[in-house]
């Protein structure tokens, strides 16, 4: 695992804001078991946009396997945690 220089605290709302921008939906709300099926347009292309936006927003990088393995939003929060972004629900 990569070394982590610092731990960043983030909230569910911070992540939610990124989702809202990527999917163009101002009313989108995250919940732990949320998957691509719960969000209109969450296809592979939007998945990439989401990853890119999250990487930019929190200054992290995900590997291709990690990107592919992210199924539900809780996985994403866990992965962010692995990169030093501590997201609280």
């Amino acid at each position, binding site marked *: 695992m990569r070394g982590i220089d610092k731990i960043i605290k*983030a909230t569910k709302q911070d992540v939610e804001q990124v989702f809202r921008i990527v999917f163009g939906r101002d009313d989108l709300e995250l919940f732990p078991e949320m998957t691509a099926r719960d969000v209109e347009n969450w296809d592979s292309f939007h998945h*990439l946009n989401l990853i890119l936006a999250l990487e930019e927003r929190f200054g992290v990088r995900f590997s291709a396997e990690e990107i592919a393995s992210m199924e539900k939003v809780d996985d994403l929060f866990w992965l962010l945690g692995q990169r030093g972004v501590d997201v609280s629900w």
Partner: protein
Amino acid sequence: MRSGEVASTTYADPLAEAKKIVEESPSNAYELFLQTSDVWSSFIRFMSAVQFLQKIPKEVRQKRAIAQLKVALLGNCTLSYMSDALSLALGPRIFSEIYSGDFDQWVMNLIDPESALAKFEPDIVVLYLSSLGLTSGGTMLVSPPADQIEDALRTFAARSRSPVITVLPEPLLECTGGNSDADRWYREAVQSISLAAKKGLAERAITLDPVPTLLSLKGEWAAPRYWNSAKVPLHPIACMALGRRLAQMIENITYPRTKVIAFDCDNTIWGGVVGEDGASALLLSPFNEGAGYLKLQRLLKEAASNGLILVALSKNEERNVVEAFQKRGEMILKTNDLSLLKVNWSPKSQNLLGAAQELNLGLDSFLLIDDSPFERGEIHAALPEVLIADLPNNPDEYASVINGLGVLERPVVSDEDARRTELYRQEHARQSARKSVVSPEEFLRDLQLEIVAMPIDANNLDRALQLISKTNQFNLTTRRHTRENLASLASDPDVYAYCYRVSDRFGDAGVTGICVAYRDGESSFQIDTLLLSCRVIGRTVENAILEHLRRWLVEKGVSQLYGEYLPTAKNGLVSNLLPRFDFTLISDTDNRKVYKYTHLDKPFTNSFAKIIEGNGEGDR
């Protein structure tokens, strides 16, 4: 793993304000969007901007644009980031409709007269065959299908007049610059595709090499993971940058923004100040600090040969500047490259405005090159439409910064083609409602000029006094009234004492005009003062003021209006103002001309300004 807690920085959405008002006022939201968004450095902002623009009705964006273009993007990869970036970068000036061809449908699209591309009737076509697409993601280094490209382009060109931009393939990530298979493949691909474009399109071939754009990026430009999962050929940030670069090029081919370059002389095209140092001391040697100035001269020379108009815009004695051109043979730029010399001591904004009128070109056709931040600021404040190069301190970087603006390239090379493109452009311009180059009338018609006429009172007295004491140029009488004097004129019901707030679509200039007229007979009035701040000269504000005055006088039952012109060293600008409005000269001495106007029943021409009655607020 070290742990130290850092509070999360919140992400401030730069479009928050615009988003708030988009529902109730889409056009204001769009204006706000254009002012606030730098979308190019951040993917989140870019996404946000793209999403936001989709909420703005098409008509609002169309209204703001000077032209419309249909652009077709063809290629062997996902083009959606490029397409969004292209449309974002072309707007607000050019409203674009973009057709993105399906992957690998580019051949059919080009050759089939019934294809989706043909039905779309593009004004311009972009073909991008990415290296990753040509090599199955870098796994198979097979030669690009040069013959197929050539034939498809030739077939398309025989049927359509639309220019085609061929984007050359990007380097493979594996390239080292040496002699690996990847390097050899890449070099061959670039060569064979540019040759295919040249053979297929003959002199109409336009190519764009993505490498300089990729090099200009701060971060990585390649991202194989995007290829593997979504056939995105470059990092999305790089796709955006390439889309933006394409927008520049398309603009330069179809509706070039810049037609005129107005440039300063001292410390801009030569080192030193000619009036102080003398022509022979100017720095112009390629071997020392002169190099940057010479590079800029070379750039200007190239622009002139591409048909751009050059105007020297310098605060100097004209003879000094001319002497420098004559005496210094090493100058690349010669006087016959210049169309106009605006060399004097007047504010540069005025000279530039004068040049725009003489050339009959809109101010947005001008690029200003000036080393002085003050002069740049002055012009920006007075003429915000002028594009201003933000020159760095180091003259060596002048030319690259100016080239980086992307407004001087003229991608079409041959004369024949230049003519054809020009015809094409003219035809297109006629079809569209508005043009990038406007006559003064068109310019004024689109200006949305508004004049709020306010009686001078305690609320605006300070500003009125300031104008009265400072305005030199557009000032008929240059009467410097004292505060007491002005206050008593303003309180007299038999005196017309107004100030005017002037605004147009470029902004609010604040209170920038004064007119005072007093009763000098049973049915006659005399104009005591008529002045305009130089900020609002040239927009027919005076027409609106005179018309406002006329209506006021008619209500008072006045039938005659006298006016006078008192010449000073600085107010030559208005020497002919009253005759222009059909005032008759009744007495003429060296230091005073008196005029009379007797048709007060007939409105003054005021075609462009909306006159609004205001109260005394708005001391701005």
